[in-house]
Protein backbone atom coordinates (compact mmCIF):
# COMPACT_ATOMS: atom_id res chain seq x y z
CA UNK A 1 0.00 0.00 0.00
CA UNK A 2 1.29 3.45 -0.86
CA UNK A 3 1.97 5.92 1.90
CA UNK A 4 -0.04 9.08 2.31
CA UNK A 5 3.11 11.15 2.53
CA UNK A 6 4.22 10.24 -0.99
CA UNK A 7 2.00 11.59 -3.73
CA UNK A 8 3.67 11.38 -7.13
CA UNK A 9 3.07 13.97 -9.83
CA UNK A 10 -0.19 12.84 -11.46
CA UNK A 11 -0.47 12.23 -15.21
CA UNK A 12 -2.08 14.98 -17.26
CA UNK A 13 -5.80 14.91 -17.95
CA UNK A 14 -6.96 14.37 -21.52
CA UNK A 15 -4.52 15.79 -24.04
CA UNK A 16 -2.32 17.32 -21.32
CA UNK A 17 1.11 15.93 -20.63
CA UNK A 18 2.66 16.61 -17.23
CA UNK A 19 6.39 17.23 -17.63
CA UNK A 20 7.36 15.65 -14.31
CA UNK A 21 4.87 12.77 -14.29
CA UNK A 22 6.55 9.36 -14.49
CA UNK A 23 3.33 7.90 -15.94
CA UNK A 24 3.26 10.46 -18.73
CA UNK A 25 6.93 9.88 -19.50
CA UNK A 26 6.32 6.13 -19.77
CA UNK A 27 3.26 6.76 -21.94
CA UNK A 28 5.27 8.98 -24.28
CA UNK A 29 7.72 6.10 -24.76
CA UNK A 30 5.01 4.19 -26.68
CA UNK A 31 5.96 3.58 -30.30
CA UNK A 32 4.09 5.04 -33.26
CA UNK A 33 4.37 3.96 -36.91
CA UNK A 34 5.85 6.95 -38.75
CA UNK A 35 7.08 7.90 -42.20
CA UNK A 36 9.75 10.52 -42.65
CA UNK A 37 8.82 13.31 -45.04
CA UNK A 38 12.27 14.75 -45.18
CA UNK A 39 15.76 13.31 -44.94
CA UNK A 40 17.66 13.27 -41.66
CA UNK A 41 21.33 13.37 -42.62
CA UNK A 42 23.87 11.62 -40.40
CA UNK A 43 21.25 9.75 -38.36
CA UNK A 44 21.07 6.62 -40.55
CA UNK A 45 22.57 4.51 -37.77
CA UNK A 46 19.29 4.82 -35.83
CA UNK A 47 17.44 2.93 -38.47
CA UNK A 48 18.34 -0.72 -39.04
CA UNK A 49 18.09 -0.92 -42.81
CA UNK A 50 19.97 2.33 -43.29
CA UNK A 51 23.24 1.55 -44.95
CA UNK A 52 23.76 5.13 -46.04
CA UNK A 53 24.63 7.67 -43.38
CA UNK A 54 21.21 9.30 -43.64
CA UNK A 55 17.63 8.47 -42.80
CA UNK A 56 16.11 8.86 -46.25
CA UNK A 57 12.92 10.73 -46.97
CA UNK A 58 10.00 8.32 -47.06
CA UNK A 59 11.55 5.87 -44.59
CA UNK A 60 9.04 3.95 -42.50
CA UNK A 61 10.18 3.70 -38.93
CA UNK A 62 8.74 3.44 -35.45
CA UNK A 63 9.21 6.47 -33.28
CA UNK A 64 8.38 6.96 -29.64
CA UNK A 65 5.50 9.38 -29.11
CA UNK A 66 7.79 12.01 -27.54
CA UNK A 67 9.96 12.15 -30.67
CA UNK A 68 7.07 12.13 -33.13
CA UNK A 69 5.42 14.93 -31.15
CA UNK A 70 8.65 16.92 -31.04
CA UNK A 71 9.33 16.59 -34.76
CA UNK A 72 5.77 16.93 -35.96
CA UNK A 73 4.93 20.21 -37.58
CA UNK A 74 1.55 20.67 -39.24
CA UNK A 75 2.93 23.38 -41.51
CA UNK A 76 6.17 21.78 -42.59
CA UNK A 77 6.47 18.24 -43.79
CA UNK A 78 8.88 16.55 -41.41
CA UNK A 79 7.23 13.38 -40.29
CA UNK A 80 3.85 11.75 -40.93
CA UNK A 81 2.34 9.80 -38.08
CA UNK A 82 0.27 6.73 -38.81
CA UNK A 83 -2.34 5.31 -36.44
CA UNK A 84 -1.44 2.28 -34.36
CA UNK A 85 -3.75 -0.64 -35.19
CA UNK A 86 -6.07 -0.34 -32.17
CA UNK A 87 -7.10 3.15 -33.20
CA UNK A 88 -7.80 2.29 -36.83
CA UNK A 89 -11.24 1.76 -38.25
CA UNK A 90 -11.21 -2.04 -37.97
CA UNK A 91 -10.55 -1.99 -34.26
CA UNK A 92 -12.83 0.96 -33.72
CA UNK A 93 -15.66 -1.25 -34.99
CA UNK A 94 -14.69 -3.98 -32.51
CA UNK A 95 -14.68 -1.47 -29.66
CA UNK A 96 -18.01 -0.15 -30.86
CA UNK A 97 -19.56 -3.63 -30.65
CA UNK A 98 -18.50 -4.56 -27.11
CA UNK A 99 -15.56 -2.84 -25.46
CA UNK A 100 -15.85 -5.03 -22.38
CA UNK A 101 -14.41 -8.09 -24.07
CA UNK A 102 -11.21 -6.35 -25.16
CA UNK A 103 -7.97 -6.90 -23.27
CA UNK A 104 -6.96 -3.27 -23.02
CA UNK A 105 -3.77 -4.11 -21.20
CA UNK A 106 -2.51 -6.16 -24.08
CA UNK A 107 -3.76 -3.61 -26.61
CA UNK A 108 -2.42 -0.72 -24.53
CA UNK A 109 -1.50 -0.56 -21.80
CA UNK A 110 -2.01 3.17 -22.37
CA UNK A 111 -5.07 2.91 -24.58
CA UNK A 112 -6.76 6.09 -23.37
CA UNK A 113 -3.58 8.09 -22.85
CA UNK A 114 -2.11 7.31 -26.24
CA UNK A 115 -5.48 7.78 -27.93
CA UNK A 116 -5.75 11.26 -26.45
CA UNK A 117 -2.18 12.13 -27.39
CA UNK A 118 -2.80 11.07 -31.00
CA UNK A 119 -5.18 14.00 -31.28
CA UNK A 120 -2.13 16.28 -31.33
CA UNK A 121 -1.47 15.09 -34.89
CA UNK A 122 -3.80 16.41 -37.55
CA UNK A 123 -5.80 13.55 -38.95
CA UNK A 124 -9.25 13.42 -40.52
CA UNK A 125 -9.94 10.43 -38.27
CA UNK A 126 -9.41 12.38 -35.04
CA UNK A 127 -13.11 12.93 -34.23
CA UNK A 128 -13.76 9.21 -34.64
CA UNK A 129 -10.78 8.28 -32.49
CA UNK A 130 -11.88 10.68 -29.76
CA UNK A 131 -15.42 9.32 -29.89
CA UNK A 132 -14.32 5.69 -29.71
CA UNK A 133 -11.90 6.31 -26.86
CA UNK A 134 -14.56 8.16 -24.89
CA UNK A 135 -17.32 5.63 -25.52
CA UNK A 136 -15.00 2.75 -24.70
CA UNK A 137 -14.30 4.33 -21.35
CA UNK A 138 -17.92 5.12 -20.62
CA UNK A 139 -19.01 1.57 -21.43
CA UNK A 140 -16.25 -0.14 -19.45
CA UNK A 141 -16.40 2.16 -16.47
CA UNK A 142 -19.48 0.71 -14.79
CA UNK A 143 -18.00 -2.77 -14.64
CA UNK A 144 -14.73 -1.44 -13.23
CA UNK A 145 -16.52 0.65 -10.63
CA UNK A 146 -18.88 -2.15 -9.61
CA UNK A 147 -16.17 -4.71 -9.15
CA UNK A 148 -13.84 -2.33 -7.34
CA UNK A 149 -16.64 -1.51 -4.92
CA UNK A 150 -17.84 -5.04 -4.38
CA UNK A 151 -14.91 -7.40 -4.59
CA UNK A 152 -13.74 -7.63 -0.99
CA UNK A 153 -10.98 -10.13 -0.29
CA UNK A 154 -11.66 -11.71 -3.66
CA UNK A 155 -9.27 -12.58 -6.40
CA UNK A 156 -9.70 -9.79 -8.94
CA UNK A 157 -6.59 -10.55 -10.96
CA UNK A 158 -8.52 -11.91 -13.96
CA UNK A 159 -10.34 -8.62 -14.33
CA UNK A 160 -7.43 -6.33 -13.47
CA UNK A 161 -5.18 -8.12 -15.93
CA UNK A 162 -7.24 -6.79 -18.81
CA UNK A 163 -7.39 -3.19 -17.68
CA UNK A 164 -5.60 -0.25 -19.21
CA UNK A 165 -3.22 1.66 -16.87
CA UNK A 166 -5.68 4.43 -16.14
CA UNK A 167 -8.45 1.92 -15.46
CA UNK A 168 -6.16 0.09 -13.08
CA UNK A 169 -5.52 3.18 -11.04
CA UNK A 170 -9.28 3.83 -10.88
CA UNK A 171 -9.84 0.26 -9.79
CA UNK A 172 -7.17 0.60 -7.11
CA UNK A 173 -8.63 3.78 -5.67
CA UNK A 174 -12.06 2.14 -5.59
CA UNK A 175 -10.59 -0.81 -3.71
CA UNK A 176 -8.73 1.46 -1.31
CA UNK A 177 -12.01 3.24 -0.55
CA UNK A 178 -13.77 -0.06 0.03
CA UNK A 179 -11.05 -1.25 2.38
CA UNK A 180 -11.06 2.00 4.35
CA UNK A 181 -14.82 1.72 4.68
CA UNK A 182 -14.61 -1.87 5.92
CA UNK A 183 -11.98 -0.88 8.46
CA UNK A 184 -14.17 1.96 9.62
CA UNK A 185 -17.18 -0.35 9.98
CA UNK A 186 -15.13 -2.70 12.13
CA UNK A 187 -13.95 0.20 14.26
CA UNK A 188 -10.38 -0.24 13.09
CA UNK A 189 -9.90 3.09 11.38
CA UNK A 190 -8.68 4.74 14.56
CA UNK A 191 -5.90 2.20 14.90
CA UNK A 192 -2.53 3.79 14.43
CA UNK A 193 -0.15 1.74 12.39
CA UNK A 194 3.51 1.74 11.53
CA UNK A 195 4.35 3.62 8.38
CA UNK A 196 4.27 1.33 5.37
CA UNK A 197 7.63 2.82 4.38
CA UNK A 198 9.09 1.72 7.69
CA UNK A 199 7.59 -1.75 7.37
CA UNK A 200 8.87 -2.25 3.89
CA UNK A 201 12.36 -1.00 4.56
CA UNK A 202 12.55 -3.35 7.47
CA UNK A 203 11.40 -6.24 5.34
CA UNK A 204 14.04 -5.41 2.83
CA UNK A 205 16.68 -5.22 5.52
CA UNK A 206 15.75 -8.71 6.68
CA UNK A 207 15.78 -9.92 3.12
CA UNK A 208 19.28 -8.52 2.70
CA UNK A 209 20.45 -10.15 5.90
CA UNK A 210 19.05 -13.50 4.87
CA UNK A 211 20.54 -13.29 1.42
Amino acid at each position, binding site marked *: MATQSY*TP*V*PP*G*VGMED*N*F*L*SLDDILLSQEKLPCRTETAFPRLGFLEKSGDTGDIQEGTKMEMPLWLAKGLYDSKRRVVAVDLPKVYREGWRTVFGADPNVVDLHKMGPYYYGLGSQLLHFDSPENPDIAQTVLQTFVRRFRRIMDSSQNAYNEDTSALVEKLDCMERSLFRSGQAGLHDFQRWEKGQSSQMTASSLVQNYRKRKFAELEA
Partner: protein
Amino acid sequence: VSVMSDVLSEASEGSGDDSQELMTPAELIEKLEEAWLNEKFSPELLENKSEIVECVMEQLTHMEENLQRVKKGDLKASIHRMEIDRIRYVLSSYLRSRLQKIEKYFPHVLKKEKSRADGDPSYLSPEEFAFAKEYMANTETYLKNVALRHMPPNLQTVDFAKCVPEPSLDSFVFLRVKVQQENILVEPETDDQSEYAVDLEVGSQHLMRYRTIAPLVSNGAVQLI
Protein backbone atom coordinates in the same frame (compact mmCIF):
# COMPACT_ATOMS: atom_id res chain seq x y z
CA VAL B 1 -14.83 30.02 29.36
CA SER B 2 -14.42 33.49 30.84
CA VAL B 3 -10.66 33.23 30.36
CA MET B 4 -11.25 32.27 26.77
CA SER B 5 -13.48 35.25 26.04
CA ASP B 6 -10.81 37.54 27.48
CA VAL B 7 -8.22 36.02 25.24
CA LEU B 8 -10.41 36.34 22.23
CA SER B 9 -11.32 39.93 22.95
CA GLU B 10 -7.64 40.78 23.41
CA ALA B 11 -6.87 39.14 20.11
CA SER B 12 -9.52 41.09 18.26
CA GLU B 13 -8.48 44.35 19.91
CA GLY B 14 -4.96 43.65 18.82
CA SER B 15 -5.95 43.31 15.21
CA GLY B 16 -7.66 46.71 15.43
CA ASP B 17 -10.53 45.50 13.31
CA ASP B 18 -13.82 46.80 14.68
CA SER B 19 -15.94 44.90 12.23
CA GLN B 20 -14.69 41.64 13.73
CA GLU B 21 -17.16 40.56 16.32
CA LEU B 22 -16.25 38.79 19.49
CA MET B 23 -16.40 35.05 19.10
CA THR B 24 -17.26 32.55 21.79
CA PRO B 25 -14.94 29.53 21.98
CA ALA B 26 -17.67 27.38 20.46
CA GLU B 27 -17.96 29.74 17.50
CA LEU B 28 -14.22 29.77 17.12
CA ILE B 29 -14.05 25.98 16.94
CA GLU B 30 -16.90 26.00 14.44
CA LYS B 31 -14.95 28.45 12.28
CA LEU B 32 -11.90 26.22 12.51
CA GLU B 33 -13.89 23.18 11.44
CA GLU B 34 -15.36 25.05 8.48
CA ALA B 35 -11.93 26.22 7.36
CA TRP B 36 -10.56 22.70 7.86
CA LEU B 37 -13.20 20.94 5.74
CA ASN B 38 -13.01 23.57 2.99
CA GLU B 39 -9.24 23.26 2.85
CA LYS B 40 -9.34 19.47 2.95
CA PHE B 41 -11.74 19.17 0.03
CA SER B 42 -10.84 22.10 -2.18
CA PRO B 43 -8.31 21.28 -4.89
CA GLU B 44 -6.59 24.67 -4.59
CA LEU B 45 -5.09 26.49 -1.65
CA LEU B 46 -7.63 28.79 0.00
CA GLU B 47 -7.03 32.12 1.72
CA ASN B 48 -5.19 31.67 4.98
CA LYS B 49 -7.12 31.95 8.22
CA SER B 50 -4.26 33.06 10.42
CA GLU B 51 -6.51 34.80 12.96
CA ILE B 52 -8.41 31.58 13.58
CA VAL B 53 -5.21 29.58 13.88
CA GLU B 54 -3.74 32.05 16.36
CA CYS B 55 -6.89 32.16 18.47
CA VAL B 56 -7.15 28.38 18.55
CA MET B 57 -3.48 28.07 19.53
CA GLU B 58 -4.08 30.51 22.38
CA GLN B 59 -7.15 28.62 23.45
CA LEU B 60 -5.17 25.38 23.51
CA THR B 61 -2.46 26.97 25.64
CA HIS B 62 -5.06 28.23 28.10
CA MET B 63 -6.79 24.90 28.27
CA GLU B 64 -3.44 23.21 28.97
CA GLU B 65 -2.76 25.72 31.75
CA ASN B 66 -6.19 25.20 33.25
CA LEU B 67 -5.65 21.49 33.12
CA GLN B 68 -2.54 21.82 35.30
CA ARG B 69 -4.75 23.22 38.06
CA VAL B 70 -7.22 20.35 37.95
CA LYS B 71 -6.47 17.50 40.34
CA LYS B 72 -5.12 14.31 38.85
CA GLY B 73 -7.67 11.57 38.41
CA ASP B 74 -10.49 14.09 38.20
CA LEU B 75 -12.96 13.01 35.54
CA LYS B 76 -13.10 16.61 34.34
CA ALA B 77 -9.40 16.44 33.58
CA SER B 78 -9.72 13.60 31.11
CA ILE B 79 -12.66 15.24 29.38
CA HIS B 80 -10.64 18.43 29.01
CA ARG B 81 -7.62 16.54 27.75
CA MET B 82 -9.75 14.74 25.19
CA GLU B 83 -11.12 18.08 24.05
CA ILE B 84 -7.60 19.46 23.69
CA ASP B 85 -6.54 16.42 21.66
CA ARG B 86 -9.49 16.77 19.33
CA ILE B 87 -8.97 20.46 18.70
CA ARG B 88 -5.26 19.91 18.18
CA TYR B 89 -6.05 17.17 15.66
CA VAL B 90 -8.33 19.43 13.61
CA LEU B 91 -5.84 22.29 13.73
CA SER B 92 -2.89 20.08 12.73
CA SER B 93 -4.86 18.42 9.98
CA TYR B 94 -5.89 21.83 8.64
CA LEU B 95 -2.35 23.16 8.61
CA ARG B 96 -1.08 19.91 7.09
CA SER B 97 -3.52 20.11 4.16
CA ARG B 98 -2.30 23.62 3.50
CA LEU B 99 1.35 22.73 3.68
CA GLN B 100 0.80 19.76 1.38
CA LYS B 101 -0.81 21.97 -1.23
CA ILE B 102 1.91 24.57 -0.86
CA GLU B 103 4.53 21.92 -1.60
CA LYS B 104 2.54 20.33 -4.39
CA TYR B 105 1.84 23.60 -6.20
CA PHE B 106 4.71 25.78 -4.97
CA PRO B 107 5.47 27.67 -8.21
CA HIS B 108 1.82 28.63 -8.68
CA VAL B 109 1.19 29.41 -5.04
CA LEU B 110 4.21 31.71 -4.95
CA LYS B 111 3.31 33.38 -8.22
CA LYS B 112 -0.20 34.08 -7.02
CA GLU B 113 1.03 35.47 -3.72
CA LYS B 114 3.66 37.67 -5.35
CA SER B 115 1.30 39.07 -7.96
CA ARG B 116 -1.37 39.85 -5.38
CA ALA B 117 -2.53 43.47 -5.40
CA ASP B 118 -2.18 45.47 -2.20
CA GLY B 119 -5.32 45.11 -0.17
CA ASP B 120 -6.27 41.75 -1.65
CA PRO B 121 -6.43 38.99 0.94
CA SER B 122 -3.19 37.01 1.11
CA TYR B 123 -3.30 33.33 0.38
CA LEU B 124 -0.27 32.48 2.46
CA SER B 125 0.44 33.41 6.04
CA PRO B 126 3.88 35.07 6.43
CA GLU B 127 5.22 31.78 7.82
CA GLU B 128 3.78 29.77 4.95
CA PHE B 129 5.19 32.29 2.50
CA ALA B 130 8.64 31.87 4.04
CA PHE B 131 8.26 28.09 3.91
CA ALA B 132 7.18 28.14 0.26
CA LYS B 133 10.11 30.35 -0.75
CA GLU B 134 12.58 28.08 1.04
CA TYR B 135 11.01 25.00 -0.54
CA MET B 136 11.38 26.49 -4.00
CA ALA B 137 14.96 27.68 -3.43
CA ASN B 138 15.96 24.34 -1.92
CA THR B 139 14.50 22.39 -4.82
CA GLU B 140 15.98 24.71 -7.43
CA THR B 141 19.43 24.54 -5.89
CA TYR B 142 19.19 20.79 -5.70
CA LEU B 143 18.25 20.26 -9.35
CA LYS B 144 20.85 22.76 -10.47
CA ASN B 145 23.69 21.17 -8.52
CA VAL B 146 22.93 17.57 -9.31
CA ALA B 147 22.03 17.79 -12.97
CA LEU B 148 21.15 21.03 -14.67
CA ARG B 149 24.54 22.69 -14.41
CA HIS B 150 26.09 19.63 -16.04
CA MET B 151 23.78 19.94 -19.02
CA PRO B 152 24.39 21.86 -22.26
CA PRO B 153 24.10 25.66 -21.81
CA ASN B 154 20.66 25.94 -23.40
CA LEU B 155 19.19 23.31 -21.08
CA GLN B 156 20.36 24.48 -17.70
CA THR B 157 17.03 25.70 -16.43
CA VAL B 158 13.58 24.23 -16.04
CA ASP B 159 10.58 26.48 -15.65
CA PHE B 160 8.86 25.16 -12.53
CA ALA B 161 5.69 27.08 -13.34
CA LYS B 162 5.41 25.00 -16.52
CA CYS B 163 6.66 21.70 -15.10
CA VAL B 164 4.75 21.46 -11.86
CA PRO B 165 1.05 20.83 -12.56
CA GLU B 166 -1.53 23.33 -11.38
CA PRO B 167 -4.41 22.34 -9.10
CA SER B 168 -7.24 20.80 -11.09
CA LEU B 169 -10.11 23.23 -10.60
CA ASP B 170 -12.37 21.05 -12.70
CA SER B 171 -12.49 18.30 -10.10
CA PHE B 172 -15.81 17.63 -8.43
CA VAL B 173 -16.59 18.52 -4.81
CA PHE B 174 -19.49 17.90 -2.45
CA LEU B 175 -20.97 20.97 -0.88
CA ARG B 176 -23.71 22.18 1.44
CA VAL B 177 -25.37 25.54 0.84
CA LYS B 178 -25.28 28.06 3.67
CA VAL B 179 -26.55 31.15 1.86
CA GLN B 180 -29.24 30.95 -0.80
CA GLN B 181 -27.85 31.37 -4.34
CA GLU B 182 -29.70 32.11 -7.52
CA ASN B 183 -28.70 31.63 -11.14
CA ILE B 184 -25.41 29.85 -10.71
CA LEU B 185 -24.22 29.09 -14.22
CA VAL B 186 -23.15 25.50 -14.80
CA GLU B 187 -20.95 24.66 -17.76
CA PRO B 188 -22.17 21.91 -20.07
CA GLU B 189 -20.56 18.48 -19.57
CA THR B 190 -21.11 17.16 -23.08
CA ASP B 191 -21.33 18.65 -26.55
CA ASP B 192 -25.08 18.20 -26.79
CA GLN B 193 -25.69 20.00 -23.49
CA SER B 194 -25.78 23.74 -23.17
CA GLU B 195 -24.98 26.02 -20.25
CA TYR B 196 -27.73 26.14 -17.66
CA ALA B 197 -28.44 27.94 -14.40
CA VAL B 198 -29.27 26.44 -11.02
CA ASP B 199 -30.57 27.84 -7.75
CA LEU B 200 -28.93 26.58 -4.60
CA GLU B 201 -31.30 26.30 -1.63
CA VAL B 202 -30.02 26.74 1.91
CA GLY B 203 -29.20 23.37 3.44
CA SER B 204 -29.24 21.50 0.14
CA GLN B 205 -26.25 19.37 -0.85
CA HIS B 206 -24.66 19.13 -4.27
CA LEU B 207 -21.88 17.52 -6.27
CA MET B 208 -20.40 20.11 -8.63
CA ARG B 209 -17.20 21.15 -10.33
CA TYR B 210 -15.07 23.16 -7.94
CA ARG B 211 -14.49 25.87 -10.55
CA THR B 212 -18.21 26.66 -10.67
CA ILE B 213 -18.55 27.35 -6.97
CA ALA B 214 -15.01 28.48 -6.01
CA PRO B 215 -16.12 32.07 -5.33
CA LEU B 216 -18.89 30.76 -3.05
CA VAL B 217 -16.38 28.76 -1.01
CA SER B 218 -14.22 31.80 -0.57
CA ASN B 219 -17.10 34.06 0.55
CA GLY B 220 -18.54 31.42 2.84
CA ALA B 221 -21.84 30.91 0.99
CA VAL B 222 -21.19 27.18 0.64
CA GLN B 223 -19.38 24.66 2.79
CA LEU B 224 -17.39 21.81 1.24
CA ILE B 225 -18.23 18.44 2.79
